[in-house]
């Protein structure tokens, strides 16, 4: 590693400090001039127009989402770890036990965008790396109820269990489709802390998560 020895402005006599100061100012001017003459250094994104080509950093935490394997199955085992450590109780993992089985599997995964602080804890603790934060930041909706929704598109066991079933048709029987507002969400009339029970007839699913 390169070690940079920085002379402090207090070092040396008056004349050397003077020239040190001048030199540092010139260095600064060189840096800013380089930015001026290199338009490629501009980081501004003209947002609404460049929606298609928007470049967002990996670290952006805009919405919580599931990750899926190449067959479109998730690895969630409904272990509830993410639910337990969420500091804001923003996650509700609903599990179910299929008839004739002793093992629980995921039914719906309710996430409350309205109370989440995007601390990323749930993403970090999940033992199967199911959760991730995506960069889909256009979250505004006309009703708070639309901000509580289900992340999984189907109810059923984790992909490891599903893949043990060789027959594709058999596999399909094990899972049931789930919509974004299925399960105990505010939109399906479930009482949730902080959300008014009043029903707005004009509530539509504008801005529903994809």
């Amino acid at each position: 590693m390169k070690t940079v020895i920085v002379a402090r402005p207090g070092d040396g006599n008056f004349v050397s400090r003077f020239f040190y100061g001048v030199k540092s100012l010139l260095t600064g001017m060189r840096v800013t001039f380089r930015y001026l003459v290199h338009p490629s250094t501009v980081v501004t994104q003209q947002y609404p127009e460049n929606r298609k080509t928007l470049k967002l950093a990996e670290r952006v935490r805009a919405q919580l989402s599931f990750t899926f394997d190449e067959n479109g199955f998730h690895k969630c085992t409904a272990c509830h770890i993410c639910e337990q450590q969420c500091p804001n109780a923003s996650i509700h993992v609903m599990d179910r036990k299929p008839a004739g089985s002793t093992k629980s599997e995921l039914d719906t995964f309710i996430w409350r965008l309205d109370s989440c602080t995007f601390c990323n804890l749930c993403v970090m603790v999940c033992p199967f790396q199911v959760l991730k934060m995506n960069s889909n930041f256009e979250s505004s909706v006309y009703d708070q109820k639309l901000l509580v929704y289900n992340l999984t598109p189907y109810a059923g066991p984790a992909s490891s269990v599903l893949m043990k079933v060789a027959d594709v048709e058999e596999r399909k029987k094990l899972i049931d489709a789930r919509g974004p507002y299925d399960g105990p969400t505010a939109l399906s009339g479930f009482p949730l802390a902080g959300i008014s029970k009043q029903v707005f007839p004009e509530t539509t699913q504008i801005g529903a998560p994809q």
Partner: protein
Amino acid sequence: MSVSSVSQDIASHLGSAPEISAAYFVAGLLGTVTFLTVMALILIYAERKVAAHFQCRLGPMRVGWHGLLQSVADALKLILKEDIVPYSADKFLHALAPVFAVVAMLLSLIAIPTSSRLALSDSNIGVLYISAVSGLGVLGILLGGWSSNNKWSLLGAMRAGAQIISYELSATLSVLVVIMLSGSLKLSAIIHSQEAGWWIWRAPGVGLLAFLLFIVSSTAEINRTPFDLAEGESELTAGFHTEYSGMRFAFFFLAEYLNLFVVSALGATLFLGGWMPFHIGNFSGFNAAMDLIPEFIWFMGKTAFLIFLSMWFRWTFPRLRVDQLMKLEWKVLMPIGFINLLLAAMMTLFGFYFFATT
């Protein structure tokens, strides 16, 4: 500026019937005001764009092509905005302060020649006059800070007062060098004395040093970063114009940007030959080629270069502390200025500069 001087010419041809002179006076006034307003709008736009690119941003992009009409929109907003006067402010002085700022700037602008034929007033004490009336601007700042009845405003105004008066000294010391070398206070004579070469390089070392001194101290005089202690957003909200809004704020803003123009124009006139094309001694072929570019363009180009330099400083350097500011002036710039003046005096005496005529 140009319109009014042309109108003066016409007026002198038509005789001096009072109605005609009055009409031309009004026309000249309107022309000048329009020129200055457009100038200020362009400067504000340029400043925002340059600042943005210095900081890896784009700057105004929405109003007009690449935000060209942004400063027009801003000006309209400021004109239409409510003009709030604090309840316990000194109403009369509060209204007077921005006028002082603008008038001081306008007065100093009068004396600057923009080409060999276009000059509003080519007085034989031009340099003295400019340094006198530009000192009036500080009165506007002091009045504004005092009359607002607000601690931040007062602090900002006091800082501005101390700063402008201090830096006036080294600005004048550096200007004196050029006056001594050219032997005149008349701006057009100073420009003509640079026919063979600009003072910045014709007087070896001394000219450049005087130029640098002038740049530093004039940046301080017009309260621009790194010497913007009078406004110092992070310390004083907005300094002396904290309590100003709407039109009156626009006046301060206008004065600030036109001051930048005046100072740069003066620097270009004194050190870079004003409207004089770039000439080198007796290389007549080269000089003739340079003469093809109109004088006004030369003047504007040099001024624009100095303005750009000032913007470059503003968006690169950090702000000084109050004590550092005073130290820089009284312990660094002033002694250097005096030594430089002494050297210049000796140079003038012995004709020890390039293309000396005596």
